[in-house]
């Protein structure tokens, strides 16, 4: 089958609403969004604390968070596999080859990305925001929220970057999810499988969905940031 036929067949699959294909897309979105929702607040808070508070070991933590952004996802998968396998310390939970295991893996992968981006956003913010809020009688949490609101576009970029990293991640999902049809098969693991089966059309169709997802996220981010940037420019 040549490239043109494959692409045509891929579009046919997409438009015919092939339930298997859209089921796979749904698994991907569900797992990644859930992972982001669960890890987001935690990672943003961690980024804020690292940027704002001075405490011993902070520098080391900052370096670690930044380094772990490029931590290989297969290694996250491997560690999680060892933890969750029957012989592992968390084996009793029987989480291996389930969606929660994939969510857990993606949370671990997203955390450093979100934390590092929030960290740099907060560092780049005007420190007067926090000070003003504090002088107006806001508590520490309230003042922190004010600061985060000031850097909301940066924080949002953090969330989108995190999404981009985990929606296309395959190493960890394949290892702890197991690529089980209808359960833990997401877009990247399905593409790998379809290619190994020689079913290129299904792979191309899923690849297009993945690219559209990634583009949509970036366009949304650009739109949100664009507005924010303009408003600031117009109000000197």
């Amino acid at each position, binding site marked *: 089958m040549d490239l043109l036929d494959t692409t045509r067949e891929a579009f046919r699959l997409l438009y015919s609403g092939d339930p298997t294909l859209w089921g796979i897309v749904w698994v991907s979105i569900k797992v990644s969004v859930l992972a982001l929702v669960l890890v987001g607040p935690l990672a943003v808070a961690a980024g804020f604390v690292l940027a704002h508070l001075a405490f011993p070991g902070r520098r080391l933590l900052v370096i670690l968070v930044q380094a772990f952004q490029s931590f290989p996802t297969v290694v996250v998968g491997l560690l999680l596999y060892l933890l969750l*396998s*029957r012989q592992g310390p968390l084996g009793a939970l029987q989480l*291996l*080859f389930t969606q929660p295991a994939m969510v857990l893996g993606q949370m671990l992968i997203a955390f450093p990305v979100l934390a590092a981006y929030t960290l740099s956003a907060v560092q780049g913010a005007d420190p007067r925001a926090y000070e003003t809020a504090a002088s107006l009688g806001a508590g520490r949490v309230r003042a922190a929220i004010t600061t985060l609101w000031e850097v909301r576009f940066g924080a949002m970029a953090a969330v989108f970057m995190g999404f981009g990293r985990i929606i296309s991640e395959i190493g960890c999902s*394949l290892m702890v999810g*197991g*690529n*089980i*049809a*209808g*359960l833990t*098969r997401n877009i990247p*693991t*399905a593409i790998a*499988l379809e*290619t*190994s*089966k*020689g*079913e290129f059309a299904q792979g191309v169709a899923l690849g297009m969905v993945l690219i559209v997802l990634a583009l949509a996220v970036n366009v949304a981010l650009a739109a949100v940031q664009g507005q924010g940037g303009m408003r600031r420019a117009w109000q000197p």
Partner: protein
Amino acid sequence: MTMFFRSLVYLFLLSPGIGPAHAAPDLRLATTTSTENSGLLSAILPLFEAKYDTKVRVISVGSGKAMKLGENGDVDVVLVHSRADEEKFVAAGFGINRRDVMYNDFVIAGPKADPAAIRGSGVLTAFGKIAAAGSGFVSRGDDSGTHKMEQSYWKATGVEPAAMSGYVSAGLGMGEVLMMAAELRRYTLTDRATYSAYREKTGLEILVSGDSMLFNPYGAIAVNPARHPGINHAGAMQFIEWLTSPDGQAAIAAFRVDGEQLFFPNAR
């Protein structure tokens, strides 16, 4: 910096020239993971390479993908185990000169506790019992030769596996499926070679073996040079000739893992 890039370029330009030059062009072989992972190829290919002063480049994938590579002319010869598809492959004009090479056998592996009590049954009885007991089965689910074999047993048993409780379609390689079967305490169909390699790690036991339905024949097919004129057809024919010759057959029979013969030559 320029120096660095320049040396990188030289490295790439020169790398194909590294290593001994061969008289004959390279032969590209697409084959199944079982022949590669078991170590059979690394045992027999050097004999062929030495005799004909050539180099065999092995791409080990599932049988389905291997034949797809052949169909696209990405390889010169395939060595696969999926008889019905092999015949279709030849009938469609994608390949020529299909020859029987050898067979290995499949076994049903499962947890020691054997919840469906299949130990010692025939393969179809065992599949029926697993379905009836709902004790679960991990399928390759990747269109590999092993997956096709499994599907043919379900068909003969009259069971619709997708509707069966505890049936999991993994879409993974044999080793990963064995690990998964061990984790989930379910049954699976596996070739004996991969099972042997994973016995220690998984603790799974062979519960059904020796049924003649479990024999798994391998065939070699040359990619049709009429469809892809640029391929190394002479090398492909030479390879198939050698595999089915007394020399090649003896090499296959002599291959042992832990003293156990895994592949049985059957060329005619």
